[in-house]
Structure formats: C-alpha cells, structure tokens
C-alpha cells in the first residue's frame, strides 16, 4: 500500500515535470495568461468602476458571481460544522472546577454536588487547569478594540489598498477568537451568542444576493451595480464603486460570523461549555 502510494507520487511528479516544459518562462510579459482578458481589466477598471485596486474591482464587480458563490461556500462550511458537532442535550460534566478569586483555592465539585452561587468570589475554570493570569487578560482587553478598528479599516479601504471584505472579516473574527481564548469560552458566548453568529452568517449572504436582486428591479442584469445609480443618485461609475463597497460589507459579515462559529464548535467539540 505504501509502495503503491510512492509509485503514484513519482509517476505524477514525472508527468508534471514533463508538462512543465510547455509553461511560459518566469516573468514573461507576453505569456498567454496575461494577454487577453486581463489587459482589458487593467486598462478599463478606472473608467468603468473608478476603483484603483484592480483585484477588488475584478473580484466584486467583473467576476461578482464567483464571489457570491464563494460566500455561499463559506456559509455552508459554517452550517455543516454546526450540524456535525453541536450537541444540544446538556450533559452535566463529571467534575466542575471553581476557583476562589482572592485566595486562589480551587474547589472540585462532583456531579450532583452543591455549586457555589456567588459569582463575584468564585469563578468557574475549565478542566484544562488554566492559571489566573491578569497580564494576559488586561493586555487582550486593551488590544481587542484596536484590532476591530483595524478590521473595519481594511474593509473600508479595499478600494485603494490591499484588503477588502474577506480579509477584514477574518481579522474581525480573529478578534472575537482572541477574546474567547484570553477570557473564557462562556464569557465570549455570553457576549456574542450562537444565535447572533448564525443570524449574521445568513445576513451576509443575504446582503450580497440582495444587492444583486435589487439591481434587477431597475431593469438591469443581476449584479450590475450601475443600476444602483437610481437609488443613490450618482452617476453609474460611482454607483458601481458604492455597489462594490456594499457587497464587500456583506462578505465581511458572513466571514466573521463563520470564523466565530467554527471556533466555538471546534474548541468545545460541540458542547460549548468549556473551551481552549
């Protein structure tokens, strides 16, 4: 079995190396990949959409259909993670650990025992025995708002600098994951719950597909943003630029919610009570 695998790999590698003699030389300006359609995109993006970042304008305007289905793919991944892992029958864990904050003593309560009610003096810790760390909590609490502002900056400046909806959405989701790691999974779920995350997943896809359908109301093609000039009151070129921004916001919301859902379900294996 192992030998067959190695033979397959060697055969495939040799075949690919044999095919590599037909590829264009590294950095050739006349290569067939860059001669036909992409020169149209580079030359006409400013006069069609007034967006200087060519990658964003191709991604969200010229090839907007692909990006819509990419958003649907990541939404499907979030949904399937929930369907695979999430268990809704709350099974009480065998032991729960509580820490007395002022003295640092840890209590271990078996199933059926009396749980300390005073949450100001006792906090519940995970079974992985996390030490009480003031530095990590305070530092993360200071950093997280700036990470979120940076994420919003990346989304908003996708027209002029590298960035866009997907990158900003991932950074925003990473800030929520940082909150869940540095504090506690239960605290993060209390702040941003499962229902809100699920709703935001669907809202992102709805914004994207809804913008396309809105363009159809004004007798234009699906996802033809120049039809939005009737609502916004600007010329069609600027309407395409604003349409790209609305669509990127949709992508960012969907991606952020899916990253949060993936972390919540993977870190707690579906039970959502104890995390990393």
């Amino acid at each position, binding site marked *: 079995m192992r030998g067959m695998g190695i033979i397959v790999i060697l055969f495939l590698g040799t075949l690919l190396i044999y095919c590599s003699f037909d590829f264009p030389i590294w950095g050739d300006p006349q290569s067939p990949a860059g001669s036909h359609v992409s020169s149209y995109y580079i030359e006409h993006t400013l006069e069609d959409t007034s967006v200087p970042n060519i*990658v964003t304008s191709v991604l969200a305007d010229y090839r907007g259909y692909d990006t819509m289905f990419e958003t649907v793919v990541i939404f499907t991944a979030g949904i399937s993670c929930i369907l695979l892992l999430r268990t809704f029958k709350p099974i009480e864990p065998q032991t729960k650990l509580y820490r007395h904050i002022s003295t640092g003593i840890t209590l271990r309560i078996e199933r059926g025992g009396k749980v300390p009610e005073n949450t100001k003096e006792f906090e519940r810790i995970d079974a992985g025995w996390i030490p009480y760390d003031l530095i990590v909590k305070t530092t993360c609490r200071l950093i997280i708002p700036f990470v979120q502002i940076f994420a919003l900056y990346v989304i908003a400046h996708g027209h002029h600098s*590298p960035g*866009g909806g*997907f990158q900003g959405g*991932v950074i925003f989701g990473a800030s929520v*994951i940082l909150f869940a790691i540095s504090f506690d999974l239960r605290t993060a779920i209390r702040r941003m719950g499962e229902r809100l995350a699920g709703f935001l997943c669907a809202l992102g896809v709805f914004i994207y597909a809804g913008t396309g359908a809105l363009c159809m109301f004004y007798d234009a093609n699906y996802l033809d943003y120049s039809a939005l000039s009737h609502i916004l009151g600007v010329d069609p070129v600027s309407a395409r630029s604003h349409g790209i921004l609305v669509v990127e916001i949709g992508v960012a919301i969907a991606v952020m919610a899916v990253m949060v859902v993936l*972390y919540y379900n*993977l*870190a707690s294996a579906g039970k959502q009570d104890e995390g*990393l």
Partner: protein
Amino acid sequence: MIWQIELVLLVMVTVCGISALAVKDLLSAAILFGAYSFMMCLLWAIMGAVDVAFTEASVGAGVTTVLFVAAVFRTTRRTEN
C-alpha cells in the same frame, strides 16, 4: 521578483512542509504548519500578489493555526506516525 529572496523562501517553505509532516507531536505539527503558511505569505508578497498575501497572513497564520490547536486539544496530541 528578486530571485535570491525567493530561493531562500522556497527552501524554508520546503523544510517547514516536510517537517510539519514528519514530527510526532501534533501540537508541533500545527505550529510548524502556521510557520509554513507565513512563509508562503512572504513568498507571494515578493511575487507581487499583495491581496493574496494579506489573505493568507490573516487566514493561514491566524485562524487556521488556532483551529488546528483547538482540534488537537480535543483529540490526541501524540502520534506514532
């Protein structure tokens, strides 16, 4: 586009990739995979693909590593192979 930097980065990428598959501790494999993702991001930034490098930096060296560590935490950490 500077071929010396690309050569060094390609060598490091290959070393990271082979070692991520060869170590016996799965947590080390996850961290080495995060380093592999980051080296790939640098390689693409040198080739001029700034959007793709940004995406890979945020996705690969950020979220993917955390998801891997979370999955290793919930399953075994040791492997024989």
